[in-house]
């Protein structure tokens, strides 16, 4: 079965989930993307993308334990499903295939 095609922002969110592992939830994902890409990012955009990824069967979510630093409120954590992993790998492979050999030209742009 062909892996699902991912949009650019979906790839970024999935990579952030892979990086954050157990600490992947809305606020940390937004922070991670904002810090690494220097994009001004709304948390709503992250939620929307996470919803979409969940509907596509690429990620799963679960509600964590109450946390003292959030006044007893729980977090909604996200993790990659196998389909998500395949889609991300495929997207990365495509990207690398297209980008390889272009380093000098891209620098010159």
């Amino acid at each position, binding site marked *: 079965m062909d892996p699902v095609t991912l949009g650019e922002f979906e790839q970024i969110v999935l990579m952030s989930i892979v990086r954050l592992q157990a600490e992947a939830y809305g*606020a940390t994902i937004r*922070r991670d993307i904002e810090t690494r890409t220097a994009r001004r990012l709304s948390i709503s955009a992250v*939620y929307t993308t996470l919803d979409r990824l969940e509907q596509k069967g690429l990620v799963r979510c679960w*509600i964590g334990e109450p946390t003292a630093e959030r006044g007893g409120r729980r977090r909604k954590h996200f993790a990659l499903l196998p389909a998500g992993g395949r889609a991300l790998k495929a997207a990365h492979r495509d990207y690398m295939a297209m980008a390889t050999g272009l380093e000098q030209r891209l620098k010159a742009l």
Partner: protein
Amino acid sequence: MLDRVLLAIITRALPSADREWMSGDLEEEFLRVSGHHGRWTARRWLVGEFLRNLGRRASIPKVKFMNWIDLKLGVRMLVKYPGLTMVGGLAMAFAIWAGVVAFAMLAPMLYPSLPLTEGHRVVQLEVHDAEKNGDESRILYDYTVWQGSLRSVTDLGAWRNSGRNLVLPGVETKPVRAAEMSASGFQVGEGEPLMGRVLTDADADPAAPLVAVIGFGLWQSRFGSDPAVVGKSVQLGNEHAVVVGVMREGFEFPVSHDLWLPFRPIRTQPAPRSGPPISVFGRIAPGETLETAQAELATLGQRVAADHPATHQHLEPKVSPYAGLLGMGGDESVIMSAIYIFVLMLITLVCGNVGLLIFARAASREGDLIVRTALGASRGRIVWQLFAEALVLGVLAASVGLVAAHFTLKNWGVPFLEANIGRLPFWWDVSLSPLAVINALALAIFGAAVAGVIPAFKLTRGMSDKLKQSSAGSGGLQFGGVWTVIIIAQITATTMFPGALYWERYQLSRVADFDYGFAADQYLTAKIDRDASTSRETIGQRLEELRRRVAAEPGVSAVTFVESLPALYHPSVQLEFPDNANIPSPAYARLAAVEPGYFDVLQSPVIAGRTFTAADVQAGSRVAIVDQGFVDRVLKGRNPIGLQVRFAPDEDAKNAAPEPWVEIVGLAKDLGVQAAVQPTRVSGFYLPAPPDRLKELYLMAHVPSGDPASLSQRLVEITTAVDPTLQLSAVQRADQVNSDLVWIIGLWLQVTSVVSAVAVVLSLAGIYAVLSFTVSRRTREIGVRVALGGPRDRVILAILRKPLVRVVIGVFVGAGFVLAAGAALRTTSFPGSELPITVRHIAVLAGYMVFMVGVCSLACIVPARRALRVEPTVALRTE
């Protein structure tokens, strides 16, 4: 507090299923943004997130009943019923405007915060005197201790006001709001120079040449935006300073200053609890909190108290957020709640009336609603439809209200606050904030709920029965008790507003037409502030020189100095008489300290006895003059000349040595020793004093012919020439000293007039709606009556009876409230309490009641004419 409210509002808007984790994420990110970029940036971010979240379909709770078609229908209704749109929309807009303006004006007082990136870390450090239950501002010694020891507060600095005249060649000399401030104030206040540099610690060295930094506004207004101003020498009072920098626009730290000088009060090691009053600021160090800073400060305070028990035994240092420097005391939530309850009451009343109009409109569509019910629409669905229609009107009204509020705040907000409390601190922003916009939208939704949901429930009650009757328009629907109460309440309020208008108009005329007792329009007055460092003798000599030179000006006949001007506040004193004088003690009077020539300058010689002489201001002389009010009120008409009187001891100083007796030597007419707003006549008690002994200092120059105001510029020039440290302000005619007050009362009068007009229009619209509804409901009955030959006047009476009864009840209840409020006012000491309720007042009120009934009857004309045009054959066919 503001952040908690904001987070709570936004959390409420989140879908309940996701609220817990979403609000946790939002708060976590809010705290992070706040820590990195400051509170205001974080608040803007949060509001942006909220608005974006609203647009995210997945996060919006699914609305089961309302849909876009309802909103579209609401827009069509606005167009189809332009009268209701205009009246209802404007009324709701007015209520929302009132709510938004009140919120915007009070928010800076109740929830102050600094518009600085690190504003939440900026604090003030004070010392509280537990014994006197007040603040001790002579804290120079404490400041030096804190500077050396305090670790949890960084960038510690101090400042004090240093109002001075800015003397520039060819430009009118005016006082500037200067601050002597530590260099760290520029870091704490996040100030960047536009040109040159800010102050440095080296500038504070007393041996260094005096330098000054000027504010952007001052640079524009007084220096003509001179690009070469840096490096120039300017005269400040009797000193010269070199301008080393111009600040960027907006920098006014520490409060609302426009010129900065180095803070140099420390020439030697200061003694505990000595030196000039100063204020201290700083920033909470990274990793520290307000609580840890307070704990460290308290420890330092205890150490100082142990070292200096004589001065510091009862002193307690404290640290608090800087923005609270001029905040409102008391429980802020109570104040805000009280104001909000008032706003909600106003909007409920207004929207209740709008609901009446919507009800009448919806009633005419009863047939449509019955058909919708027949097609399967539930009651909830129809309620949502009517709510959506009201919501469209409410959102339109909120837009108009917000524009009006923006215009009001821009044009009158700051002037109104400044007329009441002086120049505003730099962090007081009375413009429309995102929170104020959210507030307006919340009011619009609340208003729509009142105006749409209540009529909808009333209208849809028993809809299935009506369906069975299948006789739309047969008269089953009626106005109920709720609408009766609303109409009566509206007319009651409409009747009461003129009472408030009359009271405000009375206050205005009393202040504007205040009886000064002398020709106040012939006097030029000015407030004079002196440099505290100048000796009394020098001040005395300079004032004599000022008097001589002003009096020598053409047109000026005489000059005098007083402690307070006529029609302004005079302090109240408690007096007592010898036991054998048989005069009740203590007696209360208003104290006026004046020069010996005061009564001659005012061309109001004493009525009896003698005036003050130069000898009366010498040591050992104890004489006083009283006014006619004193004789009438305290002495009950007795001759005052020769009576002995003295200041009564305070309650907490009963055992102190008694004050010396003073002999009353003269009687003057009433010359305005009371504030113009003071309701009752007061007793004036004059004591002689040379000008250098007056606590406050005002100049009065008599200009018998021509406009005294034309002397203003010359007065400033002469004062600057005599002594550049004398700061003149409020240069105006004596009869204009209350012009600010007149403006404020006038503004209230205009607001009340608009409120009254809105109330009258709503009343008329409400009555019109009721009658139109009644006629449409009773078409068949009217037709039968006319067909059977019923007299037309009876038909009209039958239609008008109920609405007119409501009008009459409302008018009488309103009149009763006005009379009760007038009677209650007389038992208080509020302004207006001296107003007796006379036959004339009752006659005016009765006339207004008749007028109101007449005006309300006008609203009946169109429906009544419509009723009489009903053709019996047509009416009978409606069955």
